């Protein structure tokens, strides 16, 4: 849990973070969303004290960050950035092992943890642990970067536009992987981005920021359906709003329980956008729906998408 309470930061006369308060509960993936210069990265970097703040308090796990030595604090908090910053003179294994070694884990434990993390990111441990960063593709480097951030099982993970520099296909895969890993590990994550689609896809909670303040805080669907003001409305995009809504809403919410339909079933967790896409591709207006175990539980019709 992170509690940011009335925190401000100025550079000279310019106030980049302005009396900002935000509480992120355990297991929540909170996205700080805003255009460049809105103070989102500064906010993130104040949490692990890479940037000192002028006023207010920040607590991580109930503890005031200014009462913890910065190095000790940072070893408890995973940190992944857009430019990755893998150590070029170290192997993948050494890179991932950075924080566990700082924490004096035993060699055996470090080795096992590296294998476990490479596995989690679907990289073959024996192939990858001995490679150097320059031998990896951009997507692989970013996977290793995030694995390194998770290595010592931190209570909190900070991510600063981690997928902004990779190509769209890789970004899509990395987002899916992060969503999966977030579900699997239940980590608390603060994620900075300027990409609304990315925010809608990953966030439990989105904080839209402008000029150092949070303009609106809410679940993705909430923000799309009830934008607080014109700024948010402009930011989430007046055009294509309907499609964004479809991408956030789940089939499960519109299910016709007990009804049936022909064809390959879609999952309850799939978005309405995926349902629309499947209907268009299969030239049908009804699709069967199954639960996580693959049991057919109902159907969804075209009209349900726009209800």
């Amino acid at each position, binding site marked *: 849990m992170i509690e940011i309470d009335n925190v401000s930061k100025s550079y000279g006369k310019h106030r980049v973070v302005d009396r900002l308060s935000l509480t992120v509960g355990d297991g929540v993936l909170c996205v700080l969303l805003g255009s460049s210069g809105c103070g989102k990265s500064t906010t993130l970097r104040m949490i692990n004290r890479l940037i000192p703040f002028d006023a207010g308090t920040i607590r991580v796990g109930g503890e005031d960050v200014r009462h913890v030595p910065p*190095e000790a*604090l*940072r070893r408890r908090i995973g940190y992944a*950035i857009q*430019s990755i910053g893998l150590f*070029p003179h170290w192997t993948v294994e050494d890179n991932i092992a950075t924080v566990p070694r700082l924490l004096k884990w035993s060699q055996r434990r470090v080795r096992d943890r590296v294998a476990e993390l490479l596995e989690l990111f679907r990289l073959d441990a024996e192939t990858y642990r001995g490679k150097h*960063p320059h031998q990896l593709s951009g997507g692989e480097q970013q996977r290793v970067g995030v694995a390194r951030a998770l290595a010592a099982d931190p209570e909190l993970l900070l991510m600063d536009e981690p997928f902004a520099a990779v190509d769209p296909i890789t970004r899509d895969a990395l987002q899916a992987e992060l969503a999966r890993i977030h579900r699997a590990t239940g980590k608390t994550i603060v994620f900075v981005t300027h990409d609304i689609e990315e925010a809608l896809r990953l966030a439990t909670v989105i904080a839209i920021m402008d000029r150092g303040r949070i303009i609106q805080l809410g679940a993705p669907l909430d923000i799309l359906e009830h934008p607080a003001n014109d700024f948010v409305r402009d930011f989430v995009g007046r055009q294509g709003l309907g499609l964004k809504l479809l991408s956030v809403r789940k089939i499960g919410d519109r299910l016709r329980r007990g009804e049936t339909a022909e064809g390959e079933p879609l999952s309850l967790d799939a978005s309405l956008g995926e349902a629309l896409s499947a209907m268009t591709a299969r030239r049908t207006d009804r699709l069967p729906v199954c639960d996580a175990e693959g049991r057919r539980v109902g159907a969804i019709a075209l009209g349900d998408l726009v209800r």
Partner: protein
Amino acid sequence: MRDGRLLGSPVFWVGLLFAALLLRMDALRPVLQRMSPGVEPVIYNRDSFLALFLSQLGLVAAASLAASLSGVALAVFVTRPAGRDFRAMVNALATVGQTFPPAAVLAIAVPMVGFGARPTVIALFLYGLLPIIENAVAGLEGVSHAVREAAEGMGLSAWQRLYQVDLPLAAPLILAGIRVSVTIAIGTATIGSTVGALTLGTPIFDGLVANKLPFVIEGAVLVALFAIFTDMLLARLERWLRPLAD
């Protein structure tokens, strides 16, 4: 190293030639006698070339070691937040050290520390500092911002960042600076002979004074081989370090 690669390596042949001339210069006696008929002795014989070489090696090693340690330490200092303000000053001082002719340094140092090895080491030290500082600063500042931010964000302390990240990544450039500095020092050390230091420059100056060309040639050839051989060795070391820093 396998034999095939050893025999194909220029370092090996230059080293072999250098060692052979150092120990058996008298093998060239007929050639030198034909070149300068009537000069006797034709091979410099007041000291053995090996002794001259070892003495010069000691001077260069002492000066270069001191210049490397203090140069890298200064570079580290001026690239840390605490020392950033001193950067221009350190650079200016090193540049002055470089523009000061070594002969002038010798002339100033002799009245203070006496004749012999000491003024020579001082001159070599001052003269060799600049390339080391410049390269080390460039190397340390060349470490990418992303790498430094990641290191700090993961909780490496300032010392850990220096020893585990900055210095290893800057190592190839630091070594390149040391290599330039050492090569200059080997050539410059010869003028130490004018203030009584024993170097391979001693036969050169004796030869000039006594108008004995063979002495000049013997000294000059050995100094050149010494410098080339050392440069090649350090270049190898540098190439070996480079893949670590990518």
